[in-house]
């Protein structure tokens, strides 16, 4: 499809002999927020980490099947380029502790040896921090260490760092599970704004968050993609009984 950004077809992933993602077929459209949920060990985070080829960084981890960014097979692309195009934000805010706020935002450029004029870098920093709804809070302290910020601000700094590379897709692995409700709310608000320009894929254990922020939801169980549908449909009338049992808390 023309608007499909990420697509998988019969995609599988393993840790050694452990088959953790089984024959997943999915199409994720541009400028949508996708929530990925399922019980612990269902393969959702592994699938997420396959999308930007972080899965293969773990010894013994393998993958097979088709996984595309637009029309290009992710597993035949340069992994560094894949991670430019598919950014990632993790569960715990992880700004580089020794870098300033400013340098954290442009860390992707600096660490990859991409040189640019200071003025261009200033533009990227302001634009990224503004997109991450952090600019107003930190514009007067750009050269302080990122770790001086609150947890919620640090997470938004990590989002700004991902945005700075101008990715197509941003992956979020339980991005608010370490945040308080106010910080969670500001990050969720950010999702709505970010989807104007990016496609967001969010692994979350918080079903209410999935319901609040996503356009579509994918439910994984025991490595399988059980159901992928509009979030409204999923939370009012899921078609698979396993989805219903999970979201209603009746999972045995």
């Amino acid at each position, binding site marked *: 499809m023309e608007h499909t950004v990420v697509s998988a077809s019969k995609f599988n992933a393993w840790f050694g002999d452990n088959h953790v993602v089984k024959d997943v077929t999915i199409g994720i459209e541009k400028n949508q927020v996708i929530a990925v949920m399922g019980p612990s060990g269902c393969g959702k985070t592994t699938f997420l980490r396959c999308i930007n080829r972080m899965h293969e960084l773990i010894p013994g981890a393998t993958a097979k099947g088709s996984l595309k960014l637009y029309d290009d097979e992710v597993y035949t692309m340069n992994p560094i380029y894949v991670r430019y195009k598919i950014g990632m934000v993790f569960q715990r805010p992880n700004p580089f502790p020794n870098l300033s706020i400013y340098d954290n935002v442009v860390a992707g450029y600096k660490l990859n040896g991409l040189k640019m004029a200071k003025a261009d870098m200033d533009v990227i920093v302001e634009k990224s921090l503004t997109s991450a709804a952090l600019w107003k809070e930190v514009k007067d302290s750009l050269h302080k260490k990122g770790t001086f910020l609150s947890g919620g601000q640090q997470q938004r700094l990590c989002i700004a760092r991902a945005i700075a590379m101008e990715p197509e897709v941003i992956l979020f692995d339980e991005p608010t599970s370490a945040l308080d409700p106010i910080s969670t709310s500001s990050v969720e608000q950010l999702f709505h704004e970010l989807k104007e320009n990016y496609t967001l894929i969010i692994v979350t254990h918080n079903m209410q968050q999935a319901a609040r922020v996503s356009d579509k939801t994918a439910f994984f169980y025991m490595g399988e993609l059980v159901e992928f549908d509009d979030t409204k449909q999923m*939370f*009012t*009338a899921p078609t698979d009984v396993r989805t219903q049992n999970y979201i*209603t808390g009746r999972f045995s």
Partner: protein
Amino acid sequence: MTPLENEITALKKELISMWILVQSQLNKAKDAMVQFDKDLAREVLIKEKRVNAFELKIDRDCENIFALYCPVAVDLRFLLAALKINTNLERIGDIAAGIALYIVESSVNFDVKALESTSLIRMYDEAVNILIDTRTAFEKEDTVLARSIFKRDDVLDAINENAPLVVAEVIKADMNSIPEALYILSVIRKLERVGDQSKNIAEEIIFYVEAKILKHLESSQKHIEGEED
């Protein structure tokens, strides 16, 4: 069971208790009408407050469950259905009270022949039976039984449509029976509403169990489009 399941089970029991009370109110109003028993009619009016109390309690319970448990899927559908069923039952309670009020205020006894010739008794019995069957459908989550309500409501509608002519015959036969005949017509209209409320309840049961919306469809379509795939 999860805490939410416990809450929903308790709410379901409460709705069934309300249902039984409303059904009893409707039956007592009928007995009061047929026997012209003013004491029984007064009892219906007093117990109407209990129906109203049930409605408020169920509304509040639903509100609490929404706020505290954020229900989804079948639980969400159950709560949405429970809210609407609650309103429908309360309205049927109002209808029973309305029938009883006339008995309390009226000085004229009813001619049993007129009640029969207008099919009022038959209609009344069918309305009560429909209400009982909606309760059974709710308790057993039986959507086949719920679907049968649509056709049976058509029977009540037919009696209602025919009522002006039949009531006119009663008046023609005895001009002194005008107040009584008008009351019979009014009860027929009320019972037609009981059928409509029961039909709404049946739609809610199907929505809750099967996630299918049958509102505003013709009853023949409800059978075809609503059935399980």
